[in-house]
């Protein structure tokens, strides 16, 4: 049984999200690298993904965006700076609303043990102040709007 998600804030500029998946690493990597798969899970379940364009190669650009049920638009884009299949993806990320103040560098590492894959996402902000400011950004508000409908949506998903 995979362990639940953990989130920590080591140092002044980082947020680290760790999660296990009951699937081989190759498959998890595929879900991050194919747009038709990425758009099926990334973001809020009850939001509409209106764009998910990814040019999955080093130097390639991506853009991914969602609309909340009440019309709030959350979109980000960036460039893949390093790709080591199926174990590592590095990318820059800039939100349209610049809630991260200068963007972030996101490093995803995937390790597999006995068929269980651990995904470690390390998000590094430009500064301690930027990480702090992100906490007070509209994204947090946007997420809260989404959460109000989330529990019901998830319960439905689990039934299927």
């Amino acid at each position, binding site marked *: 049984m995979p362990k639940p998600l953990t*989130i920590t*804030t080591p140092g002044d500029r980082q*947020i680290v999200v760790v999660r296990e998946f009951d*699937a081989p690493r190759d*498959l998890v990597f595929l*879900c991050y690298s194919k747009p038709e798969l990425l758009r099926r*899970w990334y973001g809020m379940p009850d939001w509409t993904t209106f764009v998910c364009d990814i040019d999955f190669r080093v130097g390639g650009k991506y853009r991914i965006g969602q609309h909340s049920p009440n019309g709030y638009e959350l979109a980000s884009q960036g460039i893949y700076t390093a790709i080591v299949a199926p174990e590592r993806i590095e990318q820059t990320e800039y939100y349209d609303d610049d809630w991260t103040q200068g963007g972030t560098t996101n490093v995803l590492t995937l390790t597999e043990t006995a068929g269980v894959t651990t995904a470690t996402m390390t998000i590094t902000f430009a500064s301690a102040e930027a990480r702090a400011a992100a906490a*007070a950004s509209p994204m947090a508000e946007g*997420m809260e709007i989404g959460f109000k409908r*989330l529990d019901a949506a998830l319960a439905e998903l689990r039934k299927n």
Partner: protein
Amino acid sequence: MTPDQLDAVFSALADPTRRAILARLMEGEASVNELAEPFAISQPAISKHLKMLERAGLVTRSADGTRRPVRIEAAPMKDAVDWLEKYRRFWEQSYALLDSLLASLQTPVNKPEPASKKGKKDA
């Protein structure tokens, strides 16, 4: 709590000395001199850190004579933790979908399901 206040809390928490001061204050109130003791920095430097913590609402100083003890305030810290909780939920919801997707990708095309317990034996 306004975004500005939350911003102040995260900025205040971003510094290791200020986190150590808060850890000390969790044991009980202390004067500025007492707080400065374990650190290799001057009392004015500690006062500067305390001002940031005060501005964030993380500590208060009583007007109790010249000692003016500093004490920790729990509410703003809770707000900061609540934000991280929202962030955690964002990823949890997203990853819950990834779980479903991974499960569907693994059955039945990529990995045949074990034979059903009942029926289908006479196929």
